[in-house]
């Protein structure tokens, strides 16, 4: 085991929630609303149910061997060299996902908050902060998660509560009449982020100090995250309307601008935005951590942090060379991310389980044969 730290089930839950919210919380309302219009909330609801099924699949993968992370599983199930080959592709996937998150936060910042600042600089400061976390290790990351989680969670919940008086139910009517097909079709692209990306947690799951609660906390984490995603999507539809939600690049931020309760509670959208920075920061850090961990497995290095510094700078390039512009990126989110992430997030685990089953059966048969012989 390269990582020696242990995290407990609650910390794992928090990491999963942060990861699930991550970039999705600013991206999902817009994408779903543009394809499913007023039924977007149903799409998100169905997606999160499928998300729980994916968690079931991932837990099955973990069941092959509780103590091995996904990179070790690759070698365990497929053999050393095939395993290493798959590890390379899987790392490429994690690399692109991490770069994508970095790009997303960069795009958001240059659109809304720090408009004149070069995107490279924003990526750099984010990646350096992440790098510090990765160097300190998994235990520190998850403890820090525990500190920031209450803020991230409650500010989102409070935002939902504060905008609730402005909700108009006619915005989501009629329910499931128009564009029913669209609502179901949108499930697939919505699964792309974050549900297909959850596969990276297979690299962390073995480090949860008790396996049983670890698996349960995986469900709980995805559950809480999905619930928040659902609530934010619903609120953005109810308050902004499907059309305005779809038209905006980051409707959740506009939703934050809608907060007006007591006089001084106006203009606090940046405080809500900060809550997503935390979630996005943890998403980047987890991806980055898994990337470093995987690289260390690939090259049989001593610790996870050996390669993290050069990887940090590579990630910036990955973010910059992800897409030529925002439109292309949004198209990518809607069209190609889901199949791409699906290959690694659902197909690969599936193959992994299947191969493991087949091989185990073979082993058992061999044993039986041996038994028969004697």
């Amino acid at each position, binding site marked *: 085991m390269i990582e020696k730290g242990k995290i407990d089930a609650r910390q794992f839950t928090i990491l999963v929630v942060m990861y699930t919210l991550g970039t999705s919380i600013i991206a999902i309302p817009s994408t779903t609303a543009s394809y499913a219009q007023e039924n977007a909330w149903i799409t998100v609801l169905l997606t999160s149910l499928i998300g729980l099924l994916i968690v079931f699949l991932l837990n099955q993968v973990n069941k092959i061997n509780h103590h091995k992370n996904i990179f070790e599983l690759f070698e365990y199930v497929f053999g050393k060299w095939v395993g290493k080959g798959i590890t390379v592709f899987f790392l490429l996937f994690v690399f692109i996902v991490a770069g994508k998150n970095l790009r997303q936060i960069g795009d958001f910042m240059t659109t809304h908050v720090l408009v004149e600042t070069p995107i490279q600089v924003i990526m750099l400061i984010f990646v*350096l902060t992440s790098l510090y976390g990765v160097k300190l290790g998994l235990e520190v990351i998850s403890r820090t998660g525990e500190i920031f989680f209450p803020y991230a969670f409650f500010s989102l919940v409070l935002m939902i509560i504060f905008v609730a008086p402005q909700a108009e139910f*006619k915005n989501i*009517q009629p329910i499931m*009449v128009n564009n029913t097909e669209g609502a179901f079709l949108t499930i697939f692209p919505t699964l792309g982020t974050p549900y297909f990306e959850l596969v990276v947690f297979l690299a962390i799951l073995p480090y949860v100090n008790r396996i049983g609660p670890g698996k349960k906390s995986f469900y709980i984490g995805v559950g809480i995250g999905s619930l928040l995603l659902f609530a934010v999507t619903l609120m953005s539809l109810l308050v902004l309307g499907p*059309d*305005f939600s779809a*038209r905006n690049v980051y409707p959740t931020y506009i939703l934050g601008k809608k907060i*007006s309760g007591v006089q001084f509670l106006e203009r606090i959208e940046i405080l809500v935005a900060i809550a997503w920075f935390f979630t996005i920061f943890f998403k980047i850090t987890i991806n980055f951590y898994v990337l470093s961990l995987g690289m260390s497995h690939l090259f049989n290095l001593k610790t996870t942090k050996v390669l993290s510094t050069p990887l940090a700078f590579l990630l910036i390039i990955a973010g910059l060379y992800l897409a030529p512009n925002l439109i292309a990126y949004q198209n990518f989110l809607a069209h190609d991310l889901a199949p791409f992430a699906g290959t690694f997030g659902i197909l690969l685990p599936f193959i992994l389980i299947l191969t493991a089953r087949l091989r185990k059966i073979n082993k058992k048969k061999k044993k039986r044969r041996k038994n028969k012989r004697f």
Partner: protein
Amino acid sequence: MLKKLQAIGLCMVLTILSGCWSSRELTDMAIATALGIDKEGDRIKVTVQVINPSENAGQSFTSRTAVTTFTTTGDTLFESLRRLTTLTPRKLYLSHIRIIIFGEEYAKQGIADSLDFISRDHEMRTDFHFAIARGYGAQDIVNILTPIEKIPANKIFSTLESSQDFWAPTKVVQLDELISSMTSKGKEAVLTELLILGDLNKGSNIENVQSVPSYTSIKSSGLGVFHNEKLVGWLDENESRGFNMITDNVHDTVGVVPCGNKGNLTIEAYKNSTEMKGSIRGDTPNITVNFTAEANLADISCTIDFTKQKTIKKYEEKLAEEAKNVMKDSLEKARDLEADIFGFGELLSKSNPKKWKKIEEEWANIFVNDLNVDFKADVNIRRTGTTTQPFLDNISKKKQEE
């Protein structure tokens, strides 16, 4: 340890060398509070009201005005705003805009082109109001100085908010509502009108706020009706009130009915709600508007016996009838203008989505001719204020005795 020190030093040097791209000092920006948009030929004329901070806060005021306006023209809104930098000493800062005013001429030609910039620009928030300058250019309104509120934009903003809360005929419209009603197929937009009372030229002079009665003031009373992005007509005060009653936008308003032989009875309706129901039976769309209000007696200037339940009942019915008439007038006006400002179409599309698909294309025509709208009104008088029986009766008796 030395290594870490070096690392931190490196970070510090980097941050300081890299400079502060997005920062701007308070002293480097001109805080805009109102934006007036007019048409000048094919070009857009923009008037910006900018705050003069030292005249609004601090200890020593000079005789300079609290705000200044700048006007320029350009092909698009953004271009003209940027061209303003040739006039303003500082860069405009748009996040604190309270109100955006469209000139009547400009509104008649369509406001969509400027709305795109307003929704796209990151500095623009969504919490400002829109209004139309009736009979004038937006520039004229933006230029007027107002008493009490030093910043005219704030005055207009709070006038609109308070009159919506206590007086029915106005309506505040924010960006997301405006855009969604413009894009929706079964709904048209309305915007509050702004009128100038008094002498236009004196209004922009500081004398306007130095004399006890202002020479010029800004008033808001009716609504401007849009068809798609173009202004097509106006609702007067009463029709606007009807519009607000139908769309459930009345918080607190006043109702007047004649009573007795001469004189009026005034009520304050404080709990108003309207329910709209839409259905399509066969091919004829049907709308029911059900208005209910709870009211207090506010002012009686006639001699009637208000201790009897019957009297109250009678006036409740009278008031309900009055309310129905107001709503009907409003609908007639909207039909004249061929603009479904009430969102009846949208209502039908929610309740009968399938049938709506069939009549969607025909809707403008159906709204004017075939649509059947039933108005119901119900007014309940709950309290009579601090007194019950008016004393006018006694005064008149005393007169007779003398």
